[in-house]
């Protein structure tokens, strides 16, 4: 009886398999990564051309001026969107 009981103790470990351990839960921490204020300053458009002037400008230069103006508008919009993405409602 004693031998049997000792055997059953010694071999009891073989009878049950340990359960699979639970995976650790993900740890999430809100990190506020604020860029320098300079990067978050809304772009201020410069003053435009005087609208009561007249000039002679060849087509090539007119195209360049128009492209420059449209590129500035596009980049401004992109920058404003980026700033608003980072800190909603900052610009315009």
């Amino acid at each position, binding site marked *: 009886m004693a*031998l049997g009981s000792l055997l059953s103790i010694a071999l009891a470990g073989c009878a049950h398999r340990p359960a699979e351990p639970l995976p650790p839960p993900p740890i999430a921490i809100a990190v506020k990564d604020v860029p320098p204020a300079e990067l978050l300053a809304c772009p201020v*458009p410069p003053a435009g051309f005087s609208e009561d002037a*007249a000039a*002679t400008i060849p087509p090539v230069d*007119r195209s360049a001026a128009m492209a420059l*103006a*449209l590129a*500035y508008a596009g980049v401004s919009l992109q920058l404003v*969107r980026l700033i608003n993405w980072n800190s*909603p409602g900052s610009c315009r």
Partner: protein
Amino acid sequence: MSAIIAWVLAHTLTVVLAGAVPGAGIGLLAFRYGADAISWLSIHRQDAVMLLLAAIAAGIYAWGAIARHDRDALIAWGNQVCASAGSELAPTKGKRGEACATSVAQLARDRLATAQQSAQVLAQAQTDHNARETADSAQRSTGIAAIAGAATNMEKVNAQVGQDDRVDGAWFAALNRAGGLRAPAR
């Protein structure tokens, strides 16, 4: 499979030995003395009682050995668990297991709280992201429409410039609008 066989063997052996040893003794007695077994027992009563007492004592000793083995194994296991939890099963101060139980419970609470807070942070991040996306989408549409309108206007005004390449205030106004520039200082 081998684990099951070992388990069955261990438990069967216990039952077999517990039944077989006294059974064999009684059987041997009955076989040797037959009907006279009772009178044999009454003659050797003292020996039989001593034998029985010795058997009981051996049983109790074995039982105690098993209990001690169990206790030692449990304490070793407890020490291991408590060390894993950063505590001690039997600290020099306080009741055995008290501090350990507290730290294990604390670990479980912390784990739950961490999971809950993480879920909250992740959900909030998702909500914020969605809000940003909605706001940006709206600003993108209005901004691009404004630029496209100004560009169309610019093209129209530019097309009206004559062969002499003279541009007037209307052309500059369209250019200012295309660039989103401020009204010029007068």
